[in-house]
């Protein structure tokens, strides 16, 4: 067990005893067997001295206990690290950002505090998973839908605080943006509610986001300014129908007018469902770090172009695709709602994209929701139907990299402009890195339209149990970060090993953002007990001691 930095054994023992007096002895975990479960299975530092590990874990039952635990942590200067369900593998999982921290495990706090069908919201505690919420809604027969990330075993609240996203309608996909009202235990042990929740007996806590005065909810996203103990979320009514529509275009550079036209449809709120970009030239989509499974029989000429060690010549690929009657691009749209709305949306898509020469359109069957169980059983991706699954883990056996078993992956996740030009540039830049290091990536990678106004270009990188190979991956990520920052692309989220690296590139005006966050940290958490190091935010004593 590693003690927290600058904490004596005597103080640590006294703090643990005090923690146990609050939660009960059985909810304090110090045995190696138990602490093993608070490691991130996908850690890129696994088994190395710098791997972030916990000294203990404590599991409160309610917010009042959280208050008491935070006060004790202040008394003994013990760093605590709240987790909700700890299933965010690759982004830290259940592991703290600072070695020696005591994990504040909030899984026991799994109450669905309030759910309101009429106004479409839910208030949950941190331990409520997407599975829990989905199953509760089904059991109660409530007319509500949730937006789920993949995988779906994580916490609704935790996913939002980490900046997680889902795949249904745009207003609900960014989970933090869909929140309305936070209850938080501040680092001094005081409980606070944001927005209308600051009004005792408020009737509109989950209905009016702005509240009165500055809107501070965002301070609790990807930060360490408190323990969020309750959070409200807007939910959507179940759509009546769902349909997919496919638009294909023949030329590589069609991507530019394609993205522009779709962007206007999204800005006008005509297209609200997620749309995905792919290229029929690649056969089946590939998945980083997994064997992609049997692919469609591909034309040898196209395959040779895709696998050219010198890079893909897009003109050649376009010509080869045309000779086989394949379009270069395919856009799959998801539509939800009344049949007449779906048909009207599709008409708008056709009107907007018919200007692209050679564009073809196909609206698939409009299916009544909910889909019958037999259809759901055949559907691999249930996310678009608001159903959480763990099927992302079932993509096929992991592959190897540099002769080592791949045991997981971490994502390099830059946000790039919502333009076809940026897509072309990013595909070129990241494919070059993949070739340079022989990364297990598909030959063509595409941006995701999860966010409304920008693309996400997530590159999955393999994690192994070899320190040598993991060190190489860390170097590759440093290179990717530098290359991206030069182009004005920044990451929206990262693994704990890269918090400082990423925060370092957000350096406008001599790192004014980081210094502002540190100023807040020093003010609200002078003892630096709350999740030190999370998203590279530390209190003064850790900064001055150079502890990361």
């Amino acid at each position, binding site marked *: 067990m590693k003690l927290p930095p600058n904490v004596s054994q005597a103080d640590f023992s006294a703090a643990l005893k005090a923690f146990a007096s609050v939660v009960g002895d*059985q*909810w304090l*975990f110090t*045995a190696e*067997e*138990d602490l*093993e*479960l608070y490691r991130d*299975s996908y850690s890129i530092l696994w088994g190395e001295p710098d791997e972030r590990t916990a000294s203990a874990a404590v*599991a409160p039952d309610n917010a009042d206990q959280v208050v008491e635990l935070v006060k004790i942590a202040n008394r003994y200067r013990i760093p605590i690290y709240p987790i909700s*369900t700890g*299933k965010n593998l690759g982004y830290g999982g259940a592991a703290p950002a600072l070695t020696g921290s005591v994990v504040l*495990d909030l*899984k*026991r*706090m*799994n*109450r*669905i*505090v*309030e*759910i*309101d*069908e*009429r*106004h479409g919201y839910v208030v949950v*505690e941190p*331990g409520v998973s*997407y*599975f*829990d919420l*989905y*199953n*509760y809604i*089904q059991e*109660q027969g*409530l007319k509500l839908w949730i937006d789920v990330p993949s*995988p*779906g*075993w994580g916490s609704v609240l935790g996913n939002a605080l980490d900046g997680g996203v889902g795949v249904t309608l745009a207003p609900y996909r960014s989970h933090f943006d869909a929140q309305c009202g936070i209850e938080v235990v501040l680092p001094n042990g005081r409980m606070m509610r944001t927005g209308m929740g600051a009004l005792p007996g408020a009737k509109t806590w989950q209905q009016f986001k702005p509240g009165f005065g500055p809107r501070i909810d965002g301070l609790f996203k990807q930060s360490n300014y408190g323990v969020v103990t309750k959070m409200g979320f807007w939910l959507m009514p179940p759509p009546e129908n769902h349909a997919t529509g496919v638009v294909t275009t023949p030329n590589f550079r069609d991507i530019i007018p394609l993205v522009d036209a779709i962007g206007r449809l999204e800005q006008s709120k005509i297209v609200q469902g997620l749309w995905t970009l792919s290229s029929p030239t690649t056969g089946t989509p590939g998945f980083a770090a997994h064997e992609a499974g049997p692919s469609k029989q591909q034309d040898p000429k196209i395959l040779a172009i895709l696998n050219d060690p010198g890079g893909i010549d897009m003109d050649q690929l376009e010509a080869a695709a045309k000779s086989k009657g394949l379009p270069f691009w395919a856009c799959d749209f998801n539509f939800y709602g009344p049949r007449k709305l779906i048909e009207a949306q599709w008409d708008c898509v056709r009107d907007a994209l018919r200007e692209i020469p050679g564009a073809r359109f196909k609206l698939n069957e409009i299916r009544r929701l909910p889909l019958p169980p037999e259809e759901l*059983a055949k559907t691999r991706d*249930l996310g678009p139907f608001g*159903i*959480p*699954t*763990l*099927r992302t*883990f*079932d993509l*096929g*056996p*992991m*592959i*190897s990299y540099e002769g080592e*078993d*791949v*045991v*997981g992956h971490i994502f390099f996740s830059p946000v790039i402009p919502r333009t076809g030009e940026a897509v072309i540039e990013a595909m070129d830049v990241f494919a070059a890195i993949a070739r340079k290091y022989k990364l297990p990536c598909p030959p063509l990678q595409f941006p995701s339209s999860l966010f409304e106004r920008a693309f996400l270009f997530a590159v999955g990188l393999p994690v192994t*149990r070899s320190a040598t190979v993991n060190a190489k991956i860390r170097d590759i990520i440093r290179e990717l970060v530098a290359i991206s920052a030069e182009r004005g692309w920044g990451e929206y989220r990262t693994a704990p090993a890269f918090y400082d690296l990423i925060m370092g590139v957000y350096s406008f005006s001599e790192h004014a953002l980081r210094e502002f966050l540190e100023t807040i940290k020093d003010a609200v958490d002078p003892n630096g007990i709350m999740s030190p190091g999370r998203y590279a935010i530390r209190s003064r004593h850790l900064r001055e001691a150079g502890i990361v």
Partner: protein
Amino acid sequence: MMTRRTVLGAGLALASACTIAFGECGASARRHRERRSIDALLIDESIEMLRQLPAFITASGRTLPVVGIRLDAAAHAGLRRVLDTSHAIVGISLGATLFCLERIAWDHGFRLTGRSQRCATDPGDDACRHDVAAYLSGMHPLAAMPSQLIRTYRPSRADGLLHTWVMQKSASPQLRQGRREIHETAA
């Protein structure tokens, strides 16, 4: 999907496994069965061979809850019920399923105490049958696996192999004990 497709009495999986699919077990197996109480057999419904298992078990006249598992929400609800009420479970699944299941089971106090991945590409081969039968019958010592296999399952090229495993509740308490009360539901 998690379904209690066959709820008979404890030990039946052994009988079916021995007599029908997995070779000879006999008196030795019965002795071991008495020693160990397995509360449920979890089978990965993505494996065709395993889908047939409940039918074999039904024929045996012994009882053991046989629970199908899938990586989705409907299965999760049933899985939680089994994890809440069991103390020892045996499972046969792909590695990817085990990886997820183990992490869910941790929160219910379970730890992986035995695992075999010897039955590789062909779940119908003799080695596989004997291995599965041994786990189900209790002939396989619960903690006899090499330690590196016991601690946790990690994803690998073995994800697609068939894994036979045992999980038992540890002394640690259950962090998740079913869903908590709802304070308020507005319709």
